[in-house]
């Protein structure tokens, strides 16, 4: 089946093992939500899928429609149809939003002519209106001085312009007021065309009021530990994560601290021994 397949993915950064065997499928036309306490590797998974240079994959496979994603550079992954709306996108002063988006659209038209300026402006205007953004947005520098909510909308604006096959939205709901959440949610839902595969990373069930999910998974300790449907998210929303930890016998759900603590204890131990 078409889509993104992740098998036994392990990745590390700066000597920390963060992802420890992720198995996940995002099917074309389906929406998959991931939840999980802070620091359990959700954003890392998104970054690794996109090819962030700070992470090293040590084991496992990622394929998009059967193509080896790990063999591609970040820009090749984007042109192959992957899109990541980032939890905290970079600010790029000096580069205007419209120059950037136009360059990104032209980059996808390999071998073809660049998008005609007039058509581009029309599309961008429509997207700005649909997301109810400030009209001067195209001329503002990319994310520079944007409010938290403006940055999130700008990510969705880009998604609208770029028509990805698979979109990963990392906490697109955080920092949005209620009205903005509805606008963003409705825009994303409008992009569902039966082919778009969506991965929603979120902490809150309310996002699903606007974007329905076919599957819900929970991430802990750098792995997917549980998968269910929307009712799983509802239960987490009211009861928290303790019941899952109990069920699975997990004490510390995070990824990094255990390593660090061990090192720290060892240091103390040697210090005491010396004394």
């Amino acid at each position: 089946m078409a889509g993104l397949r992740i098998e036994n993915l392990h990745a590390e950064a700066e000597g920390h093992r963060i992802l420890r065997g992720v198995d996940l499928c995002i099917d074309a036309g389906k929406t998959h939500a991931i939840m999980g306490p802070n620091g359990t590797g959700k954003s890392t998974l998104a970054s690794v899928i996109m090819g962030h240079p700070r992470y090293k994959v040590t084991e496992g496979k990622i394929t998009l429609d059967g193509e080896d994603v790990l063999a591609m550079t970040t820009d090749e992954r984007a042109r192959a149809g992957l899109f990541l709306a980032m939890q905290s996108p970079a600010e790029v002063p000096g580069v205007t939003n419209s120059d950037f988006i136009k360059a990104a659209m032209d980059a996808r038209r390999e071998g073809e002519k660049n998008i005609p300026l007039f058509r581009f402006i029309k599309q961008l205007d429509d997207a700005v209106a649909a997301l109810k953004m400030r009209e001067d947005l195209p001329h503002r520098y990319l994310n520079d001085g944007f409010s938290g909510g403006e940055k999130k909308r700008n990510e969705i604006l880009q998604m609208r312009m770029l028509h990805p096959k698979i979109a990963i939205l990392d906490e697109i709901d955080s920092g949005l007021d209620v009205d903005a959440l509805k606008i963003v949610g409705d825009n994303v839902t409008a992009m569902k065309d039966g082919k778009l595969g969506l991965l929603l990373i979120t902490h809150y069930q309310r996002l699903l009021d606007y974007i329905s999910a076919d599957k819900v998974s929970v991430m802990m300790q750098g792995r997917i530990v549980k998968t269910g449907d929307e009712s799983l998210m509802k239960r987490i929303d009211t009861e928290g994560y303790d019941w899952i930890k109990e069920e699975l016998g997990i004490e510390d759900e995070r990824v990094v601290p255990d390593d660090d603590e061990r090192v720290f204890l060892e240091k103390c131990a040697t210090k005491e021994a010396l004394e």
Partner: protein
Amino acid sequence: MIAEQSAVRLRFVDKTGLVSLRDGRVLAKDLPRGLTLYDEKNVPEAVRDSFRSFTSEEEGFSDTLYVVAEAGLQKGPPLRIMLERTRETFRGRIAIYLAKEAQAEIRALAIDEAKTLVDDTWDFFLAEGSSLVFSTLSAYEEESMARTRRRAHVHENATLSLDTGALGDENAHQENRFFLKGRKARARSRSVVLSAKRQETVVKTLMAHEAPATESLIEHYGVAADESFLAFEAATRIEKGMKKSSARQKNHGVILGEKARLDANPLLYIDEYDVEAAHGAAIGRIDEEELYYLMSRGLTERDAQMLIIQGFLAPLDKLVEETDIERAVRGLVTEKIGR
């Protein structure tokens, strides 16, 4: 090389107010009103005398141009000066005199057609209340060496804004010295340098506050690629008694590649308490997060870098207004560092 490879050779399209300095001759067309030009042969003794007070004693220039803006001149269309170097060595003197309350804008382009050794001296005199907006772009051949000295005397209530862009393949040494000689004199110097291959470029800018309530700003922008070396030296001197003066310096640079070097040395010598002074430096490689963000939308690494650098050089847009030159500059940016 630039002249041959790029279809965007630096040229003025708009020829009004164009003066060209070629083979020791001054060719002028439709000079803006209120401006008078002389070369070494036809300069009257009285004008020469008034120029002596601020130009250097040196002699032996191969090409000379004196520009006088008459007192009270209102700002009109810009004077364009084209410096074309057809000989192997070129020692130019360009002296610009603004009489009281005169306002003028001058844009200069300097190019060569073959390897040259350029040694130019520019002298500026701004009498009380005058104002000059001056910008210059240069693009020489790879084996050329360009040495440029600019010296400006800015008197009471006068304002000088000087923009330079070095975009060619030459080795260059620029020295810009500004003397703020009267109360409320103001000077701003902005230099933009693109260096690539094995180019070596040094830009030194000095601001000397010699009167109270004077204001200065030094801005250096640079991109160093390949194995090039680029150095910015900014020095500001505020002497004792020059109260209420303000001085600022900015050094901004992007280093591309492992072997390029970009140094910035900001210096502030201040011998007076009642002043404002600040300097900021931002020199470094392209931010990894910015590059990743642009690439995550499908831009190749090269295109992403170019976009970031174009953004970084946004001040160039103000430096050049003619659209064809603007295009030329963009073309040169891509050609020089976008390989």
